[in-house]
């Protein structure tokens, strides 16, 4: 279910700029409006994003385009099996001139970090990244260094290439606010992509549409989108339904409920509303809930299908 933008007050410069940023990403990644909306919602809610998909559908392009459009500093880390934690966090090197150790910041010191193929690194390296995501700081040589704000991670996972990977455990998946997959573009989008010029060239043409101050303002406003008692009731029914569902072994936690509300607020803000509708919750439910559900061993449905089934079964009123 997609919620189309309702209307944007002309005088709201921030909203206009945000729309322009989203539009700009849509010019680079074709035919993925819904997913791009979700990705923006995720980042505006201050959450990290996990993209699970086959190679070559535009994961990297999406992350790069979003970083540029939002005016964020950007770093890409390609995860490999020999990647070490220090390769991400940075390392202290002895400076002969000053006679002291100097910290060389790793690629994680950026506002938007693309962690490409995160499941190819060893668990040790994965957890270095995941800890930084959770704590918003890096501790090296006994010294804590705060990460730049906003700090957002977009990680990608390759579900097909299973040989030589270390899948993220369920508990770590919880650190990502949303998990989405892009999927192949539709015929029209694919044709547009093939006809357009090289994506890398397109990316260089992009410019920032928002500045850091505006982004922080947006995040503040997202956090203040209203949720009425009726909506909270609905979210509670959803949570309860995942816990009672016969095919789900472990349902959603209260923290997952908070994540669901945060994501729904962002979607609602993108839709130009000051309050969350059940439709907003439904729009983000699969992305927020699916990777947090633990299906029962005899479950016949995939996690996403289970999440969709829960949404279809719980009444709105």
């Amino acid at each position: 279910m997609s919620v189309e933008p309702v209307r944007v007050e002309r005088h709201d410069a921030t909203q206009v700029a945000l729309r322009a940023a989203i539009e700009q990403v849509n010019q680079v990644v074709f035919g993925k409006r819904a997913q791009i909306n979700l990705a923006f919602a995720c980042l505006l809610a201050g959450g990290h994003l996990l993209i699970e998909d086959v190679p070559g559908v535009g994961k990297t392009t999406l992350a790069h385009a979003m970083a540029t459009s939002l005016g964020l500093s950007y770093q890409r880390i390609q995860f490999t099996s020999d990647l070490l934690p220090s390769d991400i966090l940075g390392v202290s090197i002895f400076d002969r001139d000053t006679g002291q150790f100097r910290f060389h910041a790793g690629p994680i010191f950026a506002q938007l970090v693309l962690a490409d193929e995160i499941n190819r690194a060893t668990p040790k390296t994965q957890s270095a990244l995941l800890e930084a995501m959770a704590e918003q700081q890096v501790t090296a040589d006994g010294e804590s260094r705060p990460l730049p704000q906003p700090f957002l991670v977009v990680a990608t996972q390759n579900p097909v290439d299973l040989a030589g990977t270390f899948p993220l455990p369920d508990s770590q998946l919880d650190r990502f606010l949303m998990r989405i997959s892009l999927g192949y573009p539709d015929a029209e989008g694919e044709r547009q992509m093939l006809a357009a010029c090289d994506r890398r060239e397109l990316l260089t043409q992009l410019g920032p549409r928002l500045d850091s101050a505006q982004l922080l303002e947006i995040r503040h406003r997202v956090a203040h989108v209203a949720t009425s008692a009726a909506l909270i009731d609905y979210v509670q029914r959803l949570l309860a339904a995942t816990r009672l569902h016969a095919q789900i072994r472990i349902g959603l936690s209260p923290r997952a409920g908070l994540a669901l509300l945060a994501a729904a607020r962002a979607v609602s803000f993108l839709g130009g509303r000051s309050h969350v509708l059940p439709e907003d919750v439904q729009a983000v439910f699969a992305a927020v809930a699916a990777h947090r559900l633990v299906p029962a061993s005899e479950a016949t449905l995939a996690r996403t299908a289970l999440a969709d089934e829960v949404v279809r079964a719980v009444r709105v009123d």
Partner: protein
Amino acid sequence: MSAPLDRGRYALVLALDALLLGGHLHWMPTPYAAWLGFLLLLAAWLSRHQVRASGALVRLPLLFLTFGLLVYAAGSPIGREGGSALLGGLIFLKLFETATARDARITAAAALFFSMIGFLFGQGLLLTVYFCMVAIAAFVLLHVVSVGEGDPAAAWRDGLRRGLRVGARVTVAALPLTIAVFILFPRLSSPLWGAPWDATQGKTGISDRMRPGQLSALWNDDSPAFRVTFAGAVPPPASRYWRGPVLWSFDGGEWSRSDLYRGSRVADLRYQPDSVVEYEVLMEPSERNWWFPLDFALQIPEGARLASDGQVTTFRPIIGPRKATFRSAWRYQLDIRPVMGQRWAAMRLPEAGNPRSRQLAAEWRSAHGGDADAIINAALQLFHRDFAYTLDPPPLSSDTVDDFLFNTKAGYCEYFASSFAFLMRAAGIPARIVTGYQGGSYNASGGYWIVRNSDAHAWTEVWLEGRGWVRVDPTAAVAPERINRGSLSAALPEAATWYSEGWGAEWRNRFDLISRYWRQAVIEFDAVRQRNLLQQVGLEDLGWRALGGALVVFGGIGLLLGVWLSLRGMVPAQRDALLVAYRRFGDRLARCGVARAEAEGPIAYGERAAQSLPECAPAILELTRRFAEQRYGESANDPDRSHRQRLARELRAFRARR
């Protein structure tokens, strides 16, 4: 159209019916009860495999089968048993057309009614508690069906827990009204449940005929026959003979009473004053018209009759529990001067049959001459030497006495009494058989004695010159423990059960005490006791008019109290006027072919409806947008309800044009 019933709730209907069947098993003819159980299983199987059996092709044969089996098992669909069984069958057939919430409600109501029918067959404490539980289960079903209507199947489990609370609460809330009506409802002089007893029904208890092998149905029946509270000293176990029908006539196979010798006056009774005891008997309904006083009754309750052979009869059968006070002497001499004709009657034997026994008696007679004591001793010695006491004797051929004395040589009291009496008569000594009970067990927690049906016994009396009728219990010669300890399990270890002794017996006694209180306080609350109770609170001699008035007043108070109890602390149902108006708005649109899916948000639904009904698209979009804003926006928390009320009015006023 009521909401369809999902499988979880249907399972609840099945469970309720199963509970209901459990409460009626004790009276229902076994094949019929088994058939109802089969219907239940069939319905469960159909539900499990999601087969719909709503067609007349399935239901009609089931209906005919049920009716046929009813006529076969209960005789007729009319009368207490037949009518109740018919109603039960219809309730179980309803399972095959239970598809909606409304059907489930009907089942719940029928279960309540059928529980009440259960009290036509028994009013014991256990049964009452059981049917209270059935009532709670019916309330649970009502609650789960009504509150969670249309919820996903998983949610009914949640409703089950709340339903149990509501059910228990409603039941408790009904108590004030129940008590008011119980105390004040005008009583009939005969019991309210005085429905005619079916003559076809097999009866337990002592009958006035005896044929060896007949009492065996009683051994396993541990239900109380009567309870006794002694006012003073208690006679020793070996003297606790509770006298029932006295049997005079023997036709070769069966002993029976003879109406000829039932003069209503005891001709000649001498007793020792120090053996006189006074006691109160609480008789269970036996459907017979005799009491079982301690041998020998001196004083009997009003309305009863003491026959010359010591049997105490009533005018009407004892169909409800009855209480009476007796006085007896357990050391006595009866009829030293013989009553006219009794000696002759106590010597009669059939013309032929049992030749070997007659021959044996003739041998004794010629050996001992007229010495009755010697003959009696010979017979008792014979029993003592060669015979075994068992509850499971081999069957006897047509010459029962011969077969028992010379072949099987094993049996219980009836066998010994019957053959002993025969031998005595054949040897020229007047003898008769007395049936009744022997012994009884003491309930220490209640301070009374229980005589159970399994204590049934038969013994003999012989008339001796100068001593009158003397009790001779041939069973004592074979199994003295049976008599001296007054219990069956003492004589036969294999007849003992876990509750014969130790903690089992203790708990059994406690339960018996409670059910005795139940009997006295509830079941025996008749017109007399009602008047006594009302007199105690100062309401004397109320006519039925005044009683009716009091009933209305106190019943009304009880009703109000019940309503208050059931509503107290309950959260008022969420009645959001805006939501109700929006649902009605949705119903209007549904009539135009755009029904809202349960899980559909208002904006999404509004857009879909606007597309299908372009004529009223602006109105639909506008109303749904405002509804979403009022319900989910910041104004939802606005204490000023005027906007919401106005929107609700507009939603209600909406009419779709096609």
